């Protein structure tokens, strides 16, 4: 099966093509086909995983050359190693759940089929991204996921906020991608190849000087910063929540945003070469994590809380990978790589579940504002229970999957006390805001009676995926039980297998932190022992700062967007007046020229034709003679042209002039003659018509 793994991305692509071209008009068929294809890829991914396990994680690579240009080989190929196998499972599992869920969620939407087409296109791009075996391909798929993300965020493009959010996401990630392509070209320039294996070998052999390597690594990381919404490019992800909720779950929680983390993990060989670059990665990760978690404490939009939570968790993963790179560069062992990738997987499941659960809630109460919810537990049992399982998991409660991966991350920070303190702080905040969300949404008295009245449990097609992901949120982390010597850390690893035993002290600390976060949330939002309003009043400046997301949007608006817009307006006016004038002028000139050619054909050529016919047959007034005349004209034209070409050639070689004057004279003579004949023929024709009118 592994040798046919290239089929995994192709099946969703096939679904996209079929839906767009053939099934668009039959909605159930379109959705059914799309789901069938993603389920096929899911089965194939499991198969690939089993085979990869059976090979003991031996990488499998298959590629062929497309062409080579400037001594760079462009190839298409796939690379299946444990990291890829894990990502395949994540993408296809969440992808399948989301597509099935969308059956219920998108029911009745006028663009139903298009939604499934886009989802399939996204799955194709994402699967291609994880299967790619070279930098060139990963960049193509990287841009493709960006495109589909843009299409899906702005899916309800009739809403201006959605369209704007799409643009914001696209442009912000593009800034990161600029860095990515620079890094990629740097690597290609020094290594002379795009292939991962060859590049890593060459970097290992030291073809890139340390300074260049650090620069390349940081530039490559820029791509991850954009795509994984890391500080300072994190601003697009919360806005991206304007897209349909299944999209948020699939793209903006589980898979695409994790692509940045995947990128860092994939290019780990580049990062371990440079401790400085790795430290930058780790610092960016922890800053993002703290920032986003603190913002999430006070937000009221259920999806935005989850979005900031996603940003914060991605920061965790990035930090873990960065610390791994740093420690490895310093010659220490580190659990960071395993921690980052494991958290990537478990996070995909519980965050996907949280978003789908939030979608289910929104579906029921038609609002995003948690202040208008409350008491929904009584009405939506399946949604509430699965949502709470995921909340426990993300808070890091034993023995759910989030506990194990978060614990690994804490272990990874063990050489860096500051990081560890901040990590635990984030863990505390995470537990608090997630349970704030749970208590406000599902417990207490309904704060909006009318919305509560109309709330109802979602259909089976929506709760089914919730339950599947709920089970995964519990068990997915068990692959990495510290007592399991041939578990996750012996499968997805970088460098040498390093198996750390259980660290009971850290487990205890992180559990205490998580539980205290939950208890605080319970005290504030359920027991009401501490008044939330009083707290907000007491810390007013901080609350305002957090509520307004540290004013990042306003800051960017002030220092970037306005100047750019002003600059843009200037160039726009330049464009409108000068460039457009030129472009339109060119367009007009082309059309004019075409018209001229037509005019030439109609008037001069046909005129000459008509004329020649008259000259030769002495009967130009009769149309049938014109028809025979045409061939003679063609012959004549050919003859004249041969003379012209010969004259030209003769002039150039024998007379050796710079400008073919004789040829030009000859040519204009021919044209003039044609015009003359045409005139005469027309006069004769008019005379004949007048004659017959009489």
């Amino acid at each position: 099966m592994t040798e046919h793994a290239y089929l995994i991305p192709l099946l969703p692509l096939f679904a996209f093509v079929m839906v767009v071209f053939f099934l668009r008009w039959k909605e159930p068929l379109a959705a059914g086909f799309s789901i069938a294809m993603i389920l096929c890829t899911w089965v194939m991914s499991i198969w690939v995983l089993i085979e990869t396990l059976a090979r003991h994680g031996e990488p499998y690579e298959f590629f062929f050359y497309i062409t080579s240009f400037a001594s760079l080989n462009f190839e298409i190929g796939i690379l299946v190693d444990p990291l890829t196998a894990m990502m395949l499972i994540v993408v296809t599992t969440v992808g399948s759940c989301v597509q099935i869920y969308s059956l219920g969620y998108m029911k009745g939407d006028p663009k139903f089929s298009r939604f499934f087409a886009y989802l399939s296109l996204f799955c194709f791009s994402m699967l291609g991204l994880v299967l790619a075996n070279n930098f060139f391909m990963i960049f193509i798929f990287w841009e493709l996921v960006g495109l589909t993300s843009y299409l899906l965020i702005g899916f309800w493009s009739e809403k201006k906020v959605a369209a704007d959010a799409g643009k914001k996401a696209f442009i912000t990630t593009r800034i990161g991608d600029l860095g990515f392509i620079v890094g990629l070209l740097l690597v290609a320039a020094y290594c002379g190849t795009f292939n991962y294996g060859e590049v890593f070998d060459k970097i290992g052999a030291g073809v890139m000087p340390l300074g260049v390597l650090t620069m390349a690594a940081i530039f490559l990381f820029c791509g991850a910063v954009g795509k994984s919404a890391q500080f300072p490019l994190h601003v697009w992800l919360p806005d991206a929540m304007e897209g349909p909720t299944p999209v948020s779950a699939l793209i903006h929680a589980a898979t695409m945003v994790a692509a940045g983390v995947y990128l860092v993990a994939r290019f780990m060989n580049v990062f371990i070469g440079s401790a400085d670059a790795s430290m930058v990665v780790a610092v960016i990760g922890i800053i993002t994590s703290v920032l986003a978690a603190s913002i999430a404490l006070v937000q009221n939009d259920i999806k935005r809380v989850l979005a900031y939570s996603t940003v914060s968790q991605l920061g965790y993963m990035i930090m873990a990978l960065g610390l791994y790179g740093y420690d490895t560069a310093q010659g220490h062992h580190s659990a960071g790589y395993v921690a980052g990738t494991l958290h990537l997987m478990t996070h995909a499941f519980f965050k996907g579940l949280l978003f789908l659960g939030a979608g289910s809630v929104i579906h029921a109460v038609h609002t995003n504002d948690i202040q208008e919810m409350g008491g929904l537990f009584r009405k939506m049992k399946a949604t509430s229970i699965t949502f709470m399982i995921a909340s426990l998991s993300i808070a890091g409660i034993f023995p759910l999957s989030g506990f194990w991966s978060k614990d690994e991350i804490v272990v990874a920070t063990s050489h860096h006390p500051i990081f560890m303190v901040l990590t635990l702080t984030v863990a505390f905040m995470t537990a608090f805001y997630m349970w704030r969300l749970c208590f406000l949404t599902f417990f207490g008295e309904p704060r909006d009676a009318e919305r509560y009245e109309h709330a109802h449990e979602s259909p089976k097609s929506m709760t089914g995926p919730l339950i599947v992901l709920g089970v995964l949120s519990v068990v997915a982390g068990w692959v990495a039980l510290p007592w399991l010597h041939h578990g996750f850390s012996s499968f997805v690893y970088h460098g040498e297998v390093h198996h750390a035993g259980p660290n009971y002290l850290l487990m205890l600390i992180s559990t205490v932190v998580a539980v205290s976060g939950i208890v605080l949330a319970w005290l504030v939002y359920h027991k009401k022992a501490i008044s939330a309003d009083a707290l907000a009043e007491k810390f007013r400046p901080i609350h305002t700062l957090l509520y307004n997301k540290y004013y990042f949007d306003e800051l960017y608006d002030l220092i970037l967007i306005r100047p750019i817009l002003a600059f843009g307006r200037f160039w726009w006016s330049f464009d409108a007046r000068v460039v457009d004038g030129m472009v339109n002028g060119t367009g007009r000139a082309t059309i004019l020229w075409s018209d001229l050619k037509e005019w030439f054909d109609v008037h001069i050529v046909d005129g000459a034709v008509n004329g020649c016919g008259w000259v030769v047959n002495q009967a130009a007034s009769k149309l049938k003679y014109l028809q025979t005349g045409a061939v003679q004209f063609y012959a004549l034209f050919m003859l004249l042209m041969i003379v012209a070409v010969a004259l030209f050639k003769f002039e150039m070689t024998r007379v050796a002039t710079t400008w073919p004057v004789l040829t030009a004279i000859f040519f204009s003579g021919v044209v003039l003659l044609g015009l003359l004949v045409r005139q005469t023929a027309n006069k004769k024709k008019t005379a004949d018509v007048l004659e017959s009118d009489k």
Partner: protein
Amino acid sequence: MDFQLPDYNVWQMLPEIVLFVWALAVIVFDLGTKRKTGSAVGYFAMLGLVVSGIALAIVGHGRGFGNMFFNDSLAVFFKVIFLGAAFMTIGSSFGITKEKIVNHRGEYFGLLLFSTVGMMFLASASELITLYIGLELTTIPLFVLAAFFKDDKKSVEAGIKYLVVGALSSAFLLYGLSFLYGLTGTTDILQMRFNLAAGQLSTGGDIGVILIVAIIALLAGVGFKLALPPFHQWVPDVYEGAPTPITAFLSVGSKAAGLVAFIKIFVLGLYAYYEPFMAPNDWGMLTGALAVGAMILGNVVAIRQKNIKRMLAYSSIAHAGYIMIGMLSMNELGLASVGFYMFGYLFTNMGAFALIAHFEDKTGSCEIKDYAGLSKSSPFAAMSLTIFLLSLTGIPPLVGFFGKYYVFAAAIKLAGSGPGYDWIYWIVGVALITSVIALYYYANVIRTMYFIKNDAPVKLVFSAPALSMVVIGLIGVFLVGLNPEPFIQFASGIPFTAGFILP
């Protein structure tokens, strides 16, 4: 004098002989069954092409009749293209043989096979007379085929025009050939250039006026087949009037035949044509000028066409220009890129014409506006035509892109080889700009199919052969486009053909 009988080695002609006999058999078969054979005679003719192809594979490389008949890489490559073009032409002819030319199926298919035989002889010819006869055997059946709808004025007009202009160009070709013989004293193409070089040396490198006249006459004769301006005027009229499958055959088979003749005469025979010390490179510049003319004229005039066959006629003129770019860059990549271009053009153009022929069979129309709404009624047809047109434009990863890519790459490579070749950048620039113009009129058809509403769009129900031809075209467009490496390898054999030495 020691005279030796040449080694005949008739075996080498097996593919041609098979096809020739088969063509006769096709006619006899149709007559023998009192013209009641239906489609069987068409399938029989297709079988003949397959058998000839197998024979071609068995025969392999070699030579026969002294040095007059070569089966070298060049010949084999182009024979494959000729057989493929004929195969796809017959495949898309079932519509018209079912409805329109019920009483002359045998002649129709027979003549097509004869024309193919002519092309194959042409590809193997290594001597001027054989080459000329091959060219005539190619063209004369096509005169008849173009006029095959004898009750249709346009078709008859097309046939007559083609005949008259074709005869004239043939005369020019012969004229040029006779001059060449006079100058060199041989008709052997490979010997010619040595004699010419000796003659040139004795006059101190001076190019005789006679040679100029000869070359230009030859250029006219071959340019006619290639549809290269200014010898293109027959193209729109004939393409529009001729039965659509024949138009397809003209645009691919006949053009490829012209290309072979061009390579034989100008590259192999008049090697001096590219020899720097004898001919300043403005010979190349002349070819370049013709290419620029073809690209501009073809692409610009195509914009205003309302009939899709006429539009493709101008597009075919433009493509002749692109091919010439590869032609004038006589490096290793040059000839290979030309062969590859033609190979891709085979699938793309034959596929597009198969669809157009099928559309015409169902609706009787070739007007672009009648394609409106096709995406709703026949999504497969609309999608396929879209893919073919995009490939003609040169959109990756379709084969048309790689065709253009290799041609341009070859030209750029030559342009970088010395300061005297800067003008090639300009030609490639024109090619790139006209490629953009080309997108305009190709996309216009796509726009019509997908975005223009039509209350009663035609629903195309594919017959088995028509569908197979479209599918073969699609497979070719994608297969060669996604994996061009083996095919460019195949085409790379062309420059190492018998007697060709890289300059």
